[in-house]
């Protein structure tokens, strides 16, 4: 056997070049995969969506600290009153909102909600555990005044908004 078995072989450079190409292929595939993952990643704006929806509802319902009187009308339509697109909140919606009108814990009118109803429960779940595919939610309470039989009373608006919209690529 001896040392001649291992040393003085003329074919060593050709064997190593095959190994080098193999390494190049691995490096190339890794670079391409990494770049594709990076540049196809989404910028997540769902939280911003939820906050903007809250701001829109709040500024529509409360004017100068007072709850708009139209809210108490029996045929009050929040979509036309607050300039919301009811098609976007229809079937298969990626949005949700729920507005409660309270005075010391009691409702002063029926709550208003629209969008995907399951988001309310999903928001509770998303608070407890990290959930990438669950909606991003925003909830806040805002105090307001309102008239009740010519008497000024104070109330609280509790608004929950949610968005699970990720956008998408048009298919031609």
């Amino acid at each position: 056997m001896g040392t001649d078995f291992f040393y003085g072989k003329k074919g060593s450079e050709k064997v190593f070049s095959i190994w080098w190409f193999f390494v190049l292929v691995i490096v190339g595939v890794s670079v391409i995969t990494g770049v594709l993952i990076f540049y196809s990643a989404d910028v997540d704006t769902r939280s911003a969506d939820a906050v903007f929806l809250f701001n829109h509802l709040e500024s529509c319902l409360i004017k100068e600290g007072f709850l708009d009187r139209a809210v108490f009308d029996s045929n009050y339509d929040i979509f036309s009153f607050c300039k919301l697109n009811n098609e976007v909140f229809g079937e298969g919606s990626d949005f949700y909102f729920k507005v409660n009108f309270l005075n010391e814990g009691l409702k002063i009118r029926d709550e208003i909600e629209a969008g995907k109803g399951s988001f309310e429960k999903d928001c509770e779940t998303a608070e407890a555990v990290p959930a990438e595919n669950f909606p991003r939610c925003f909830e806040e309470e805002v105090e307001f005044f309102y008239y009740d039989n010519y008497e000024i009373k104070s109330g609280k608006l509790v608004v929950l908004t949610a968005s699970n919209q990720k956008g998408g690529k048009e298919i031609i």
Partner: protein
Amino acid sequence: MRNILRDKRGEDIFYPVVIFVLLNLVFFGSMIFFVVKSSSGALVYEQAYAKEIALLIDSSEPLSEVRIDFEKGLEIAKKNEVENIDSLVSVENGRVTVRLDDNGGYYYDYFTDYNVEVNFEENFVVLTIDEKNGD
């Protein structure tokens, strides 16, 4: 004369090294080309512009005018030979769609029910936001 070209002692180490260096240059050049092409591609900017425009519409009040710097978008569209500038950005029925090439665009919905007009002024997209007629 033959001896000038043949039977040189450096032959065995010259050609493999040259080929090795050339292949490396081709390989790394391809990688750099791919990375640069990906980073300046349409998809990234389509997504960014669509989301920016939709969020701006949702956070605006009626009778607003919003100007967005669209220079990079125009550059990409020109590179992709998109001729009709008016088709780059469409805002209708609650959806913003930005198309910077001919492979379809990127869309993002907005929740307000405003009337939005889209115009181009030099390198800017100008959005004019107003309430719908009859409101």
